[in-house]
């Protein structure tokens, strides 16, 4: 009876979507290179550093169990032999497909998180002065963040030379971070120009929103820069 319950629990677990970032990250490492639990745990620490952490090596064993139950990975035949068996795991076809879908799904998740943040922020627009101050601080935080984004450079580092995929990974992360912060700064500038116009309109006793800003047709600020399109055109 106990076994029956376990199977039922297992089926329920397998049917539900897998939310654990650690599990997905581990699957990614297996896709990158099939390996065994201890080596995967070490690679996990090296790759994800402070972004994600395993509570212990046994956490890796648990995660591998889940991935196996969900048929996302399978044992490589012939790796369980010897005095100290080290079963190696590789991704299944389902594992590859699900991992791909998970990555694509992250775009929507990220967008949702950003939307919630913006809704919280724009809830403050009843007080344009306060909102401008917050957005100004937000922009400042982005500028500080951009300073700490490293400059990605050409070759020369022995670790990168030994493992080009790690170098590429680090480079992709740095570039994504730079572009993301740049977009946030552009947005902050745009938001401030909108709020400035709103504050001015209120001071003049006019309405609110785009109508009050007098921003119609070609005069609407660019979503990218907060500057008017005609002015951007003559930038340089």
């Amino acid at each position: 009876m106990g076994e029956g319950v376990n199977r039922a629990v297992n089926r329920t677990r397998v049917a539900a979507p897998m939310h654990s970032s650690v599990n997905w990250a581990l699957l990614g490492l297996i896709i990158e290179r099939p390996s065994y639990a201890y080596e995967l745990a070490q690679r996990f620490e090296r790759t994800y550093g402070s972004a994600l952490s395993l509570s212990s090596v046994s956490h890796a064993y648990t995660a591998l169990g889940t991935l196996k139950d969900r048929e996302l990975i399978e044992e490589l035949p012939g790796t369980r032999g010897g005095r100290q068996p080290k079963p190696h795991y590789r991704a299944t076809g389902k594992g590859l497909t699900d991992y791909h879908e998970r990555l694509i799904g992250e775009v929507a998740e990220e967008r949702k998180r950003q939307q919630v943040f913006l809704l919280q922020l724009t809830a403050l627009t009843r007080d344009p002065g306060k909102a401008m101050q917050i957005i100004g601080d937000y922009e400042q935080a982005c500028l500080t963040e951009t300073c700490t984004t490293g400059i990605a450079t050409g070759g020369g580092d022995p670790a990168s030379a030994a493992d080009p995929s790690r170098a590429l990974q680090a480079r992709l992360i740095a570039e994504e971070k730079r572009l993301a912060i740049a977009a946030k700064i552009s947005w902050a500038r745009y938001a401030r120009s909108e709020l400035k116009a709103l504050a001015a309109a209120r001071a003049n006793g006019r309405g609110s929103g785009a109508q009050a800003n007098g921003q119609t047709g070609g005069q609407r600020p660019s979503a990218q820069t907060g500057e008017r399109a005609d002015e951007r055109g003559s930038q340089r």
Partner: protein
Amino acid sequence: MSLLELRHVCKRSTRGGGRSRLVLDDATMSIDAGELVAVWGLRGSGRTMLRVATGIDAPDAGSVHFDGRDLRTHGERILGREIGYCQSTPRGAPGQAAIEEVIVGLLVNGVSPSDARARAHEVLARVEGGSLGARRLSELDRDERVRLAIAHALALEPRLLVIDEPVAGVELHQRDAILLLLRSLADEQGLAVLISVGDLTGLSGADQAFTLGDGELRGSPKPELAPVLELRPAIGLRASG
């Protein structure tokens, strides 16, 4: 005392048709030796700011001080010597060898021809542009022109290096090499480096980053020195310089 200080600077810039716009409104900032500072501004406002910061243009209000000296009164002696302003468009004829561009800059400053040549080789090597020397100016790519401009300014051993848009028009994979060069000039030679950028990604790796718009100079508080990551695999990439 900082090396360069802008104190409550205001500057209007006049454009065609006599229209003017406020580029700097009560702008205050400071740069220390060994710092890389980047300013992002639209419509040439970054360039105007650099011209004011170097004493080429005087502020309408406020003051700019270099090592405690007001640039309004001491600017002529400081610019070109202690402040190196990089011109990314070479002054020489298109057929001229790149090294001549550096040599001429030294000769007009009273350096002997033999010393000038030796110094030119030295600074071209420093900017990883050793192989540029013999090439014609017309043959240089955008990033090579930037390296040459930096070498030209470095030849006179400035304490502050100023460059307008060093990464504009530079291919993506060369962009970081230029930023790294500027970073290394600050870190290894203790130079203060001030750049304007037209693309926000050019702010990365700076010790201080600013945006400039509607006269407002908004900046980051000075963070700890930015890390330099060795990231790019050498495979398949053109060697710089």
